[in-house]
């Protein structure tokens, strides 16, 4: 089954290009550390999922590029083509000239309706190229105007046009100290709207990835390209073919569906966080060895203590003891800083997986009581190594990971809204104060729900 990627705005297109690049280079690589047959199987599955094999020499990404100004798409297309190993379909992009001006209302209320037909035509074409469509993967930032506003509109259109397909939104959380002054408004509007049409929101925070680049990747002058490459690696670690059940002989045919089924049991809880270890500069890879028990121990503590990366983990945080007289759903009962999960997915890629013990992730005290711990936790194991890492472990978590960032963004947006600053810029394009209030209400509800886990 195939995934159609929709790249929205500057951020979405820049990241999208790195994702396809990472996926393609991984699939073609010879570092799989597995049998040739296994490697071929992986490569074929990857190709079917992300690329279209046309008469052309190189695989063509199953993607639609959308932006309201031409420079980024033009660059994205040419960088891909220059790689020589893959490219985009030359016709599968839509752009305009004037941009969205960082204005969510402009993206959503003006550009959206105006260009709906043209954009959805492109999506339809890509969808038709797939033998079987697993669903859509959209990439966007919440801070700007196109990715956020037009992105929210397009997501809605996807939901309307493809009611039975899965939609996974990859959302970039901007740096806390601004890239865009109205980013908190744009974020609030985006999240509240996506929540209605999307199946799940997979979030990457710029601040977190930046830290990974600085502290783990040892990059001195960090560029957006560096940040995007780390993000692409993390996404690849989840989206590349994997065996989703024990004793499976075929790679999963329904990647998005499998992801949603395991992680999103309830529509009120759609915020997914992603952690991937280990992360290190490429030239250190040859000199490092990791053990699965070590990786799993770290990953689990990162989950429990809500650590953003494998350095600086707070090992003091422990899950609450079960069997206390107070009902386990009570939030005041839990130790401070403990991150409660609804559901978790661990994806392991590399050799020696037969010895792996994931029992610690099945500990009921990690989870809310709604799901059977057997259902709340899932693991995908694949012996084929990923992106030159001999062993790589990823965690996709539906937990309180994003509670604090969400609360921060809503708080700052509310503070600004109380002063009415910048509101005239939105009402100019048809988003009124009432619309803001609706969005705030929706997100306070999400915050409340995640808080009371």
């Amino acid at each position, binding site marked *: 089954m195939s995934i159609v990627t929709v790249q929205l705005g500057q951020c979405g297109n820049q990241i999208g290009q790195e994702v396809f690049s990472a996926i393609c280079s991984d699939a073609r690589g010879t570092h799989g550390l597995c049998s040739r047959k296994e490697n071929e199987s992986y490569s074929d599955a990857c190709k079917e999922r992300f690329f279209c094999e046309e008469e052309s020499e190189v695989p063509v990404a199953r993607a639609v590029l959308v932006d309201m100004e031409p420079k980024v798409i033009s660059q994205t297309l040419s960088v891909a083509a220059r790689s020589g190993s893959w490219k985009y379909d030359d016709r599968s992009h839509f752009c305009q000239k*004037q*941009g969205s001006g960082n204005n969510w209302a402009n993206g959503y209320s003006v550009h959206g309706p105006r260009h709906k037909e043209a954009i959805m035509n492109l999506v339809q074409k890509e969808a038709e190229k797939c033998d079987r469509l697993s669903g859509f993967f959209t990439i966007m930032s919440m801070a700007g105007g196109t990715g956020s506003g037009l992105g929210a509109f397009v997501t809605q259109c996807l939901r309307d046009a493809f009611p039975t397909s899965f939609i996974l939104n990859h959302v970039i959380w901007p740096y806390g100290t601004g890239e*865009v002054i109205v980013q908190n408004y744009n974020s609030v509007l985006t999240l509240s709207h996506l929540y209605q049409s999307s199946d799940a929101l997979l979030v990457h925070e710029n601040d977190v990835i930046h830290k990974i*680049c600085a502290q783990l990747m040892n990059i001195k002058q960090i560029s957006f390209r560096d940040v995007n490459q780390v993000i692409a690696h993390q996404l690849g670690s989840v989206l590349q073919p994997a065996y989703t059940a024990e004793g499976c002989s075929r790679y999963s045919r329904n990647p998005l569906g499998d992801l949603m089924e395991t992680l999103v049991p309830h529509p009120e809880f759609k915020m997914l966080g992603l952690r991937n270890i280990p992360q290190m500069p490429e030239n250190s890879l040859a000199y490092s060895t990791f053990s699965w028990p070590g990786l799993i121990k770290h990953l689990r503590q990162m989950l429990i203590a809500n650590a953003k990366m494998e350095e600086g983990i707070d090992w003091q945080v422990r899950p609450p003891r079960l069997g206390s007289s107070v009902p386990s759903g009570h939030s005041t009962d839990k130790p401070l800083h403990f991150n409660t999960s609804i559901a978790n997915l661990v994806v392991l890629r590399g050799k020696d997986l037969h010895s792996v013990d994931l029992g610690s992730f099945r500990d009921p005290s990690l989870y809310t009581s709604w799901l059977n711990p057997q259902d709340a936790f899932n693991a995908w194991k694949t012996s084929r190594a990923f992106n030159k890492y001999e062993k790589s472990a990823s965690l996709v978590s539906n937990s309180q990971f994003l509670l604090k960032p969400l609360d921060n963004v809503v708080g700052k947006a509310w*503070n600004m809204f109380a002063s009415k600053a*910048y509101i005239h810029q939105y009402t100019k394009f048809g988003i009124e104060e009432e619309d803001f209030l609706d969005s705030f209400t929706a997100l306070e509800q999400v915050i409340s729900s995640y808080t009371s886990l």
Partner: protein
Amino acid sequence: PVSLPFAVGQCGNQVGCRFWDLALREHAAVNKKGVYDEALSSFFRNIDTRSGNDGPDIYKGKICSLKARALLIDMEEGVVNEILQGPLRDVFDSKQLITDVSGSGNNWAVGHKIYGYQYQENIVEKLRKSAEHCDCLQCFFIIHSMGGGTGSGLGTFVLKLLEDEFPEVYRFVTSIYPSGEDDVITSPYNSVLAMKELNEHADCVLPIENESLFDIVNKIHQMINSGKLGSTLKQNSLVTSSAGSAKTVQEKPFDAMNNIVANLLLNLTSSARFEGSLNMDLNEISMNLVPFPRLHYLVSSLTPLYTLTDVNVPSRRLDQMFSDAFSRDHQLIQADPKHSLYLACALLVRGNVQVSDLRRNIERLKPSLHFVSWNQEGWKTGLCSVPPVGHSHSLLALANNTCVKPTFIQLKDRFMKLYKKKAHLHHYLHVDGMEQSCFSEAISSLSDLIEEYDELDTTKGGPRTDPSRLKIAV
């Protein structure tokens, strides 16, 4: 996206002339293959001149003949004629010019009411023609001075016209404000009358004071003459320089100062024209820097003012660039944003500067800056890969800051000094359509604006505690 600059009046056209020259230089440096590209199309059309000057536009392919997308308006012929006889003559054609002979006599009313009325149709027609040639017109730039008659009066008339004819296109105005010792006695009248129009019809105004330009030019001369820089100074990197221009230009007295303003406009539009990892378009500037419609005055600063030939730029020097952007010496008006209140701030970086450099410097500078309560992290940032000619990197800072208040207060004071004595008033009231109420409304508009800034300074923008959040029933 396309921008259409208008130069109105003597000052406006002198700056405009420098702007077009430097723009050509900048594009020539980047565009090695002589192909007409997206970047060039922001400011230039490409005409097939084989059939004469009226040839069709060529949208792709080799550059044939570049024509500036511009309107040059002056009620005296001197400056415009010089441009048309000078090295830039091929860049303009007669259809882009509107001139008269006698000038406005430094009288806002003559510029606005008499010439405005007289040339309205002509201006609208030429405007529409120019707009027709634009694939996607995003922004108008008006370049003018506030103190005279044409730039000030006719310039603001054109502003109103733009709003009426093209309400959706952004209106950015670069206004040169007169200094206290300005030759023109009635410059306070002209400026205040113009301010009312800027308050009501402009999307963004970049006020610039001659005094600041003068100080910067002097500072550079001192540095050069002190001999400290010697041969390491890159001549064409001076923000005041015309060196290495597209065509050879004889330096005229105000050229150095005008070059600074021209560079401001080039930097302002760089991220819209050239690629980068975080683009910043003009509509984004308006969106992020104007929290309330009337508070649209942006203080600008440019760094560096010159570069040394040292190719390896240690991050220390990069950081110095950021520090300089916030120093008094680099502001284009006599103001000190560091000691006033920020409503919003934008940083547009050009060259080999990455997001980590930006973040490091924002973190470093933040603690010493005062931001309004509802916008504590109010930074808008842009990264453009292409540096200006002669530099490896540069920074343009735009601040919406209450430090403009003193400039406006001074203006008001100078106005009142004249107005109380009714000095020179009759020159204005003689003009058809001018009444005393024009003056009282104008000063009232300015007073209201000053009060809005005052209010912000006092309250720092909001209540002492954060407003309580919405409560959700569980």
